[in-house]
């Protein structure tokens, strides 16, 4: 499927020129967060993008520090939401097109939910909340999906302390206990 008319349609929808990268089934389009839901809805309704392959998030805080890499994150927006869509022909079972949408948000913003468009987005949005702390609008009571309710913070944020542990039972700092040494790397009995 030729993506050019789709891209121009989305540009018209967003009312601004959009940056696209990649080509063919790797095309990624960056849309403003306020228009992300509208773009997904539009792609589903008008262009047959009927499968939500993934909805996830990337934290770019500190990206490229000390390296040649330049962070693609716009000023003040550290999280990139990624919507990956696929147009599947139900008759033939063939994939007609793939398209990814990027949308940059900050930690405080509440992007619109798409779980009414794609029921699969329900758990994916919960995962984004659980891991990154990006909450979607219209779901004020969102629950964690992977971590337990007692857990505080969002572990995949770059500023989550890498050594922080929140066990439900057992010691909070397990590093203090006796460790197995390489010499013990065979089955052994503890008296």
């Amino acid at each position: 499927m030729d993506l050019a008319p789709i891209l121009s349609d989305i540009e018209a929808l967003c009312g601004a020129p959009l940056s696209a990268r990649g080509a063919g089934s790797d095309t990624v389009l960056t849309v403003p967060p306020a228009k992300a839901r509208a773009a997904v809805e539009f792609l589903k309704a008008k262009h047959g993008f009927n499968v939500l392959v993934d909805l996830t998030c990337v934290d770019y805080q500190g990206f490229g520090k000390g390296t040649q890499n330049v962070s693609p994150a716009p000023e003040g927006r550290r999280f990139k939401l990624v919507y990956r869509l696929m147009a599947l022909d139900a008759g033939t079972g063939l994939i007609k097109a793939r398209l990814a949408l990027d949308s940059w948000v900050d930690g405080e913003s509440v992007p619109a939910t798409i779980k009414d468009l794609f029921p699969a987005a329900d758990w994916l949005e919960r995962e984004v909340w659980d891991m990154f702390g990006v909450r979607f609008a219209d779901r004020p009571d969102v629950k964690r999906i992977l971590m337990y309710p007692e857990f505080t913070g969002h572990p995949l944020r770059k500023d989550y302390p890498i050594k922080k542990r929140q066990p439900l039972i057992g010691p909070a700092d397990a590093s203090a206990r006796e460790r197995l040494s390489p010499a013990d790397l065979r089955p052994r009995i503890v008296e």
Partner: protein
Amino acid sequence: MEQDLSAPGILTSQLDQAIGWARKYSIFQYPFVTACCGMEFMSVACSHYDIDRFGAGFPRFSPRQADVLMVVGTISHKIAPVLRRIYDQMAAPKWVVAFGVCTCTGGFYDNYATVQGIDTILPVDLYIPGCPPRPETVLEGLMLLQKKIQAQGRRA
């Protein structure tokens, strides 16, 4: 039959041996399988390596009927209370085997989600390292466990 046989203690020590012998060859195990080590556990448990030779081939899926808790695979903090509860439900005498490096130390999962060794939440009798351990390693461990059970007699 007026004679008191218990005084010299000979009968007691022989009974210990008999109980230890009986227990070590009738290990009813509870497989608590959470991750990829489970594949290797299945390989040990099935006929190719055949832990039934050691009397340990009979998995019980109720902790109340099990003697050995086989913890096979990564234990996350979320599942840790469940594992502890299953251990508490087992009737004594009971033993715990940490199968694979994740259960021994957390393995390479030194992160927010993983218990850094199940010995931080319950007592472990036997550590079997490896990622995953080869079946031969498991069999060696099983024999060590049998040795321990034999040595404990009825004291366990």
